[in-house]
């Protein structure tokens, strides 16, 4: 059933999400190609200011609305009138939560990629034009655009290498895997925190949204306090390597445990304490 849930969850969300993120990419491309085919000095200042204002607004709105719409989807689909269909499907609470969480996660990643693509569309055309019109002298060397990108990549990896060797990490593949796991754990933790707050809000007969907001604030505060205490304890360790590895590993373990706890809270409420008003 999870596959079917995912299919219909994606179908219900993709149009709004694609529109939001598509507009962000389009705005970047509009600016990028606009600057490419005209000289900035020839454009009226007001037009540039208005465009940049609209661009920043749209990119921020795309990110915020992606989160807001996906949070709203969980609430509307399970705890309002739509829940009268969703909750009578022969589907387990686990499948409902997992499908919503995975689609939310996918759109969060796609939103980040859209914002990156939007920046790239905005900046790359002008950068390419610059490099084709001029040769860049860098440390007395002439650089093409591809040379510049290679140089940039080498600098980034160089800084990362230096940071890793400073704290004594030599296994880069392990570090990369650890980072990927950490990324997904924190992504799903963020989503499940919203879901758990909404589920707790559904337990009261009135002021459900207010209760959800207060639950979110309460849970975040408690997690921050206990998370802070555990990190402070780790810092009592003396070597930088031990501090970084212990704090990273303990943060990951805590995040994964919290994901499981929040997931179980959602599942319990949905399967054992559902009360649609």
């Amino acid at each position: 059933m999870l596959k079917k849930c995912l299919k219909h969850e994606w179908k219900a969300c993709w149009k709004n999400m694609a529109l939001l993120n598509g507009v962000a990419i389009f705005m970047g491309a509009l600016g990028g190609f606009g600057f490419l085919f005209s000289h900035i000095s020839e454009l009226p200042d007001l037009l540039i200011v208005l465009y940049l204002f609209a661009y920043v607004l749209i990119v921020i709105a795309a990110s915020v609305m992606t989160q807001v719409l996906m949070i709203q989807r969980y609430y509307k689909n399970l705890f309002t009138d739509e829940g009268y269909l969703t909750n009578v499907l022969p589907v387990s609470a686990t499948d409902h939560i997992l499908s919503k969480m995975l689609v939310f996660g996918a759109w969060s990643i796609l939103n980040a990629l859209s914002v990156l693509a939007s920046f790239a569309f905005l900046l790359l055309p002008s950068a390419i034009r610059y490099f084709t019109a001029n040769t860049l002298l860098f440390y007395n060397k002439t650089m093409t655009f591809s040379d510049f990108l290679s140089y940039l990549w080498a600098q980034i990896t160089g800084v990362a290498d230096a940071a890793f060797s400073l704290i004594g990490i030599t296994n880069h593949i392990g570090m990369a895997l650890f980072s990927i796991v950490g990324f997904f754990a924190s992504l799903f933790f963020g989503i499940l925190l919203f879901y758990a707050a909404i589920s707790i809000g559904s337990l009261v007969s009135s002021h459900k949204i207010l209760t959800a907001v207060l639950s979110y604030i309460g849970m975040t505060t408690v997690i921050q306090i206990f998370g802070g205490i555990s990190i402070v304890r780790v810092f009592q360790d003396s070597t930088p390597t031990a501090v970084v590895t212990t704090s990273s590993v303990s943060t990951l373990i805590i995040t994964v445990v919290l994901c499981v706890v929040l997931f179980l809270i959602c599942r319990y409420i949905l399967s054992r304490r559902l009360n649609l008003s």
Partner: protein
Amino acid sequence: MSELVTCKDLTKRFGNHTALDHLNLSLDSGKIIGLLGPNGSGKTTLLKLLNGLLTPSEGEVLIAGNHPGIETKRIVSYLPDKMYLGSWMRVSDLLTYYSDFFEDFDMSRANAMLESLKISPKDRLKTMSKGTKEKVQLILTMSRRAKLYCLDEPIAGVDPAARDYILSTILNNYEPDASILISTHLISDVENILDEVIFIQEGQLKLHASVEDIRMQEGESIDSYFREVFKC
């Protein structure tokens, strides 16, 4: 006939208000049952408990021997008194949705009913009137070959001409071994199709009897008898 629904001391409280109060009830399969009672008597609460949309405060409800859950949702088809369909959907999306999730969904039956009511599968819900949306919801509910149909006010929002079609739809589209539980205030419209009636008042069972027995013993229609029992 076997016992399809069992309620044992079923109680549901909302804060200080008791919507259902230690209700004991058993329903057999193969019957059309009218769930009747004044406003706020607990009819919708009972239907929601049967569908797992509410959690009992006390007691239990069993459908074919199971507590409401995945197993019971496979065999119960529910029509709530709310518009539960996403307005962004087309009718064709809903048909796919139902056939994906409900193994007992009969697509050809749904298409035949849509055609009779001149509703195109391409129509979007947001362009439909409230009455048409209710018809779509009823078609989806009755297109399942379920063991139990729970219909909450299925004819309240439609015009009298459509009521006849809906009632004949209900009559013609359920399996002989299935039961239909209909909650309604429009008793005179439905009483001719009912086998049994349940009267509920203030969350308690007032009467559970066959329509034939009531007519024989009281010498009046169910509508008249209801008015007499619940006279204000």
